[in-house]
C-alpha cells in the first residue's frame, strides 16, 4: 500500500503552510527520521521528518507552493514490500491558495477578501497521545492540540504534558475566540490609480495582522506610563559586566528589565494573568515574551521563569533565542506561551510608545529610550538618565490600580536595582 504523506501541523496554530523546499526527490528512499521537506509555518521554518519507510513515489505539491492546508496529501511513499508502481493519485490540491492571489499583479478592484478561516482544528488529524498523557492533560486542563509530541512518531507523552505551561490551557478559549475574528479582512482598498506593487503577505505577517486585530478588538487596553531613573541600573550594569567579562557574558539593559518585569509580576500577581472567558488564569510563574524584530516581522521568544533566573542566564538565553529567531529556527515551545511581554524601542530613539497586548496575555511593557533629562532631585534641578515605560493592560482582567501597582514596583526595582541580583 502506498502511504500518503500529509501536510503536518507543525504548530498548534498552524492551519496551512508553505512548502518551502523539498529535501528529497521522487525515487529517493527515506526511512523514519529522515528530513523530507522544509515547511514554513506562520511562525518559523521547520523541518519535516519522515515517519514511515519507503521510496518517495510521487511528489504532489511543488516546492514553493503556499497556502497548503494541513492534512493535504503532499507526496506518496511506496513501502518497501510494495510491488508495482503506485496507482497514480490525482495531484490533490495546492488549490485554494494558488487560486487566491497571483503574486505580483495589479489587484482586482476591490481586492477579494481572503478565504474564510479554516476550522480551528483540523478535522481528521487524530491527536496522538499516550493514555497517561491524555489523563494528565485532562487533570491539568491542558489542551493536547496545543502541544508538540516528543514520543515515537510525534506522540505526545507524559513529559510533554508535564512540561506544558498552565497557559497552554488557554489555547482552547483563545483558539475558539480566534475563529470569528480571523478574516482580518480589511474592507476593500479602492484603486485610485496610484502606482503601486502588490506584495503578497508571508505567513508571519498574516498571523501578526490577525492576532493584533484580535487583541485590539477584544481586549480593552489601558495605558499607564511612568518615568524611571536609570542611573543606578546603568552603574550596576557597568560593574556586573566588568566582572562577567571573563565569562564572556555582557548584560544588556533589556536583560535587566526582563528580570525586573518578571519580579514585579511575581510581587503583583494580579497583573500576571490571562482573561479566559468565564475564568481567569492566575500564573504563579512569570514567563516573559520578549519582542524581537526580524526581517519578516516580529516574534516573541520566551524567557521561562525569568524571576528565578540570574541576569547572566537571562542574557545568555536571550542571545541564543534572538539568534534563532533571526534564522527562523525557533521551536514552537520557544515562542508560544509567556505570561506577559516586553517590547523595547529605546535603541531606536523612541521616547514613549504604547504596545498592543499579545493575547492571551494581559499585559505588555513598552520601553522607551533612556536619555538625559532635566530632573528634580531634592527640590533642585539636576540631570538624570530617565526612560519612560508604558504598561498596556487588558482592562477585563486587570484594574487600573493593580496596573499602577505593577508600574510602581517595576519602577522601584529599576531605580534600586540591587533587588535584581539579590
Amino acid at each position, binding site marked *: 500500500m502506498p502511504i500518503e504523506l500529509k501536510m503536518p501541523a507543525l504548530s498548534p496554530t498552524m492551519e496551512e503552510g508553505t512548502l518551502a523546499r523539498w529535501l528529497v526527490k521522487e525515487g529517493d528512499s527515506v526511512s*523514519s*527520521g*529522515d528530513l523530507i521537506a522544509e515547511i514554513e509555518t506562520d511562525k518559523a521554518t521547520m523541518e519535516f*521528518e519522515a515517519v514511515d519507510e519507503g521510496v518517495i513515489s510521487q511528489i504532489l505539491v511543488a516546492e514553493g507552493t503556499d497556502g497548503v492546508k494541513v492534512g493535504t496529501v503532499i507526496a506518496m511513499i511506496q513501502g518497501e514490500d510494495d510491488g508495482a508502481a503506485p496507482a497514480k493519485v490525482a495531484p490533490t490540491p495546492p488549490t485554494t491558495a494558488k487560486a487566491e492571489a497571483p503574486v505580483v499583479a495589479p489587484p482586482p478592484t476591490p481586492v477579494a477578501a481572503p478565504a474564510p478561516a479554516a476550522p480551528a482544528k483540523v478535522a481528521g488529524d487524530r491527536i496522538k497521545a*499516550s*493514555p*497517561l*498523557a491524555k*489523563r*494528565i492533560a485532562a*487533570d491539568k486542563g491542558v489542551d493536547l492540540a496545543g502541544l508538540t509530541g*516528543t*514520543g*515515537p512518531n510525534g506522540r505526545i*507523552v*507524559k513529559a510533554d504534558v508535564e512540561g506544558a505551561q498552565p497557559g497552554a490551557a488557554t489555547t482552547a478559549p483563545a483558539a475558539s475566540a480566534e475563529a470569528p475574528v480571523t478574516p482580518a479582512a480589511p474592507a476593500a482598498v479602492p484603486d485610485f490609480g496610484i502606482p503601486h506593487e502588490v506584495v503578497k503577505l508571508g505567513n508571519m505577517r498574516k498571523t501578526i495582522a490577525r492576532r493584533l486585530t484580535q487583541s485590539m478588538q477584544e481586549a480593552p487596553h489601558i495605558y499607564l506610563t511612568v518615568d524611571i531613573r536609570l542611573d543606578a541600573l546603568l552603574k550596576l550594569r557597568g560593574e556586573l559586566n566588568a566582572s562577567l567579562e571573563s565569562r564572556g557574558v555582557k548584560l544588556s539593559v533589556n536583560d535587566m528589565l526582563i528580570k525586573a518585569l518578571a519580579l514585579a509580576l511575581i510581587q503583583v500577581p494580579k497583573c500576571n494573568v490571562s482573561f479566559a472567558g468565564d475564568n481567569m488564569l492566575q500564573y504563579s510563574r512569570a514567563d516573559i515574551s520578549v519582542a524581537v524584530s526580524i526581517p519578516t516581522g516580529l516574534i516573541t521568544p520566551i524567557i521561562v521563569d525569568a524571576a528565578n533566573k540570574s541576569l547572566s542566564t537571562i542574557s545568555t538565553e536571550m542571545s541564543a533565542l534572538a539568534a534563532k529567531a533571526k534564522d527562523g529556527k525557533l521551536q514552537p515551545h520557544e515562542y508560544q506561551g509567556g505570561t506577559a511581554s516586553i517590547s523595547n524601542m529605546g535603541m531606536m530613539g523612541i521616547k514613549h510608545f504604547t504596545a498592543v497586548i499579545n493575547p492571551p496575555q494581559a499585559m505588555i511593557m513598552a520601553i522607551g529610550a533612556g536619555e538625559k533629562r532635566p530632573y528634580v532631585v531634592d527640590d533642585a534641578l539636576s540631570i538624570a538618565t530617565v526612560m519612560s515605560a508604558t504598561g498596556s493592560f487588558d482592562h477585563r482582567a486587570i484594574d487600573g490600580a493593580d496596573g499602577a501597582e505593577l508600574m510602581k514596583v517595576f519602577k522601584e526595582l529599576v531605580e534600586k536595582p540591587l533587588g535584581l541580583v539579590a
Partner: protein
Amino acid sequence: MADNYDLIVLGSGPGGYVAAIRAAQLGLKTAIVERENLGGICLNWGCIPTKALLRSAEIYHYMQHAGAYGLTAANISADIDAVVKRSRGVAKQLNQGVTHLMKKNKITVYMGEGRLSAANTLVVKSDKGEEMLTAKNIIIATGARARDLPFAPADGKRIWTYRHAMTPPEMPKKLLVIGSGAIGIEFASFYNDMGAEVTVVEMMDRIVPVEDADVSTFLEKALKKQGMTILTGAGVQSLKATASGVTAEIKDKDGKVAKSEFTHCIVAIGIVPNTENIGLEALGVETERGHIKTDPMCRTNVPGLWAIGDVTAPPWLAHKASHEGVIAAEAIAGGHPHAMDAKNIPGCTYCHPQVASVGLTEAKAKEEGYEVKVGNFPFIGNGKAIALGEAEGFIKTVFDAKTGELLGAHMVGAEVTELIQGYTIGKTAELVEADFMHTVFPHPTLSEMMHESVLGAYGKALHI
C-alpha cells in the same frame, strides 16, 4: 596509511556489537575492535553461560523433587565438569553467531587492544603489531570487570570472581558469597542447587538491595528454606586463602566478629569500569565515579567520541548497553533516536525463585512524593502456578494514585523474568491502570497474575 572508517566501536559486548550492526545497517563504514572474545562478557562470561549453568541446576532440582510430580528418578548425581562444558558450548555457539553477524553486515573486526591516540584515531595492538585506524566517530564500549576486595584480590583458586565461578576448578563444598546483587545471588543459588553449603554475606540490611523490600524479604525466606545461610547487615573483615580453603572474619549485624572456614569464596561486590589504558585521560574525557559521562544520545564531552554500556552510568545491564548502542549508532548516522528512560529498563535475576522488576519500588515511589496504590497477587492464587508445582512468589504493582501511571512492578517466582516485559511495554507506552485492566490475559498462564495484581491495586482482584 591508516584505514579510515565512519565509525569504530571499541569493545564487542552486547553494547558494542549491536552498535556496529545498527551503524552498518544505516550505511556507515564500520569497524569493531575486541581484545578477547566477540560478544564480550555477556555472551562469553556473563549473562548467557550463567543461564546455561542455572538451567542445569534447575533440572537437577526438579530431578531431586521428581516425586512431587509422581515420577521416580533414581541415582541422581551432578557432574560439575559436564555442566560447565555445556555452558561453554552455549557461549561458543553464540560467539560464533556474533562472528557471523559481523561478517553478514560487512563490519571489519580487529582482534587486539585498542587505544585512542586522538579523538578520531585508534591504535590497535595485537600479535601482528600495531595498526592505526581513523574514524569520524568512535564509540567506547569497553564494559566493566568485577571489583576486587582490596584486602583479598581474587586468585582463581580459592577466591573467585564471577569469571572463575563460571569455570570452577572443582565443585565447592562450602561456599562463601560476598555480595547479594544479581551476580552474587545467582551463583549462590546455582551452587546451592548443585549441592554446596552456601553462605551469603550482604552489607545492606537485606539481600538484592535494589529490589523492592517485599521481594528481598520473600527471597531471603525462600533461599533459607533451601538451606542457604544468609547474613545481612554483615561485612567480611578479612579473607585469607589457605591450602584447603579460605578463612573469613565476618562481622555480623550486632557487631560481633567471628572466624569461619569455607572451601571457596565468590566476590561479587560490584564492578569497575574498563576506562584505563585506552587513552581517555589525555583526551580529557569527563567521568563520574569512574564511569564515562554522556548525554542522552551517548555523546561524551569530546566531539566525535561516544560511550555506551557498563563503562557509562548505571544501570549496568546488557540490554541497556544494546539499546544505547542503537541510539548512538542512529544519532551518528544523523537520525533522531528517542532517548532511553532509565525507569523503563527492566532488571532480571535468575536465582531460584527468579526475580524481575521495572521502575520504582514502593518505598522509592513514596520517597519521590507519589501517593501510591499497591497491588500484590500471590502465585498460590494462580492455577497455572499450582499446576507447575511453583506456587511460591508474588507479583506486586505500584501505581500513582493520581494519574494511574504504573510506577513500578516487582515479581518473584517461577518464570517471572519472562513476564516482566509485559509491564515494560505498558510502562513505555505510558498505559494507565485502565488499559491493563482492559487487556485480556490468556488462561491458564502465569501472566494472569499480572492482571490480578493491577486489579488488586484498585480493590478489584478476583481470585483472592
